[in-house]
């Protein structure tokens, strides 16, 4: 991510003023939704590929699935859902013009993101210590690929949140103009949603 996440160019600002306030339509910038759509497509195909490959070798998948740390996965699910709730509160706060509240809620979400990353890193550490790699078998290929791909998205989301927090703290958003917050929030919700599909699919369903 570059440092210009929150820079608003004059033309964009003008366009926004002309249109705000608005209630209906997609929250955040349309560009992020194109990106989200592409990401969902990539993950979607990965999920379908997982399901098909699993159907071809159910026993291997079930046996390997046994070795996963389901408790860690479940905790992480709760962590992400809670963080998404915080992000939602942040958006509500900025809609009421409460910049500092918005920043605090986002800060809490960012912290939970950190918790997720910590727990996930421990899981990765355990698997790598056990000598498991992408080439071990097709279950672990999918497990590592999907969770690592998602892990990178969480890191990306945290960077985005950090930028939004910094700007919100400086009072860079207002009741009228908070597209940046909504854009960041949309990305974070996507990251959360992907995990909500990923966790049962890879950790639980047998």
């Amino acid at each position: 991510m570059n440092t210009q996440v929150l820079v608003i160019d004059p033309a964009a600002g003008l366009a926004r003023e002309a249109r705000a306030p608005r209630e209906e339509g997609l929250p955040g910038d349309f560009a992020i939704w194109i990106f989200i759509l592409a990401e969902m497509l990539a993950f979607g195909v990965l999920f379908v590929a997982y399901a098909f490959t699993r159907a071809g070798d159910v026993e291997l998948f079930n046996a390997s699935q046994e070795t996963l740390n389901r408790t860690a996965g479940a905790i992480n699910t709760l962590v992400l859902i809670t963080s998404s709730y915080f992000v939602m509160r942040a958006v509500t706060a900025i809609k009421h013009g409460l910049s500092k509240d918005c920043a605090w809620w986002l800060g809490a979400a960012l912290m939970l993101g950190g918790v997720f990353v910590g727990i996930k890193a421990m899981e990765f550490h355990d698997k790598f210590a056990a000598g498991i790699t992408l080439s071990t078998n097709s279950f672990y290929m999918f497990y590592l690929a999907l969770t690592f791909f998602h892990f990178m998205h969480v890191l990306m989301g945290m960077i985005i949140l950090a930028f939004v927090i910094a700007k919100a703290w400086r009072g860079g958003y207002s009741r009228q103009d908070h597209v940046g917050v909504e854009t960041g929030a949309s990305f974070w919700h996507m990251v959360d949603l992907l995990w909500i599909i990923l966790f049962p699919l890879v950790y639980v369903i047998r």
Partner: protein
Amino acid sequence: MQYQSQAVAKPYFIAAIGLFVGQILFGLIMGLQYVIGDFLFPAIPFNVARMVHTNLLIVWLLFGFMGASYFLVPEETETELFSPKLAIITFWVFLVAGALTVLGYLLVPYSTLAEMTGNNILATMGREFLEQPLITKIGIVIVALSFLFNITMTLLKGRKTSISLVLTLGLLGLAVFFLFSFYNPVNLVKDKYYWWWVVHLWVEGVWELILGAILAFVLIKVTGVDREVIEKWLYVIITMTLITGIIGTGHHYYWIGAPEYWQWWGSIFSALEPIPFFMMTVFAFNMVSRRRREHPNKAAVLWALGTGVLAFLGAGVWGFLHTLAPVNYYTHGTQLTAAHGHLAFYGAYVAVVLTMISYAMPILRGRAANSEKAQNMEKLAFWLMSISMLVITLLLTGAGIVQIWLQRISPTPMGFMAVQDQVSIFYWLREGTGVVFLIGLVIYISSFFVKGGAKAAA
């Protein structure tokens, strides 16, 4: 012409077209060697003709990109080029180096050429598309650096538009990834793995930034659509290009000894690669239909739309056709690959360079657009070249499908050479279609020499 220094683009465009002719002539020689095996043997063996054919393509496209940049950047940055003199020096250095390299290919046995040019110091030669002698490769780096320096300095002193930024980023990536051509480990798997960092990350990565920027520039000029709108779409399209194309490199890692998970990564991400090309087509048509002015240069508009459609067909559709690992298992390294290569290069890169030439050349010659008659000839050339390239692609696809069936799927597989005899009819038709392409090219070049009735300068 708004800026004097844009004039340096002209020799670049002329050289590009000249080398294009050479490329097509050698293509016809190879096409004939496919059916009359000993044609021109031993004077020009197939491998030499192919090397000249592909290297000329790369070099003339680079000439085209450079010419396009020298034309585009002053107008975008609203300032004269940092150093027109350097641009002209670079031009001659590149042209002479390119000509010497091709002469080397044609006149000296390749192994002797390797010995003469320092391949024993650092072995980089003899890999597909990177056959250039070490000194030529170093020359390319020097030319690329001086070119980038010139463009960057111009950019720094002028207006920084998205188009010029994306273009410069693409050119920078082009130079950076070319450096991997100097890495040639003995380990064949690693050699191939990083070879694709040049080839794939060029044509399905950074070159698409250049393509997008040039297309966006011409579309702004010929449609008069708001820059804000066009640049926004440019960003969205190149974002999609890179997020699908970078991991999409994996579609080259299926069968070269890399880990097998690349079959998943490569299949999934490269299956998404047609999306940006489709968006580009929609984008081009959308902008033209929303045009705010009737630009007198209709030929340039045709080329721009053609780029959208043909790039989508060649790179998008024909790429998707064989990108999934289970399909690619059978199609890898057959005439189907050749079919895709031809239409993708023509549709994406040849077409975009010719779009730029079509738009810029009349202006460089002091008029907004060519005469009606010249434009009609150019349009005829567009249709002849584009349709014949499409037909060539279909014929090679036919040859590829038969080849795959006889050689790889059939319960009693035939040997390679026996199969080649079976598909010779496709090769004959391809050669005939190639002649039509050449006729199109001759008409294209003649259109530059049509006299009279020019539209007034812009």
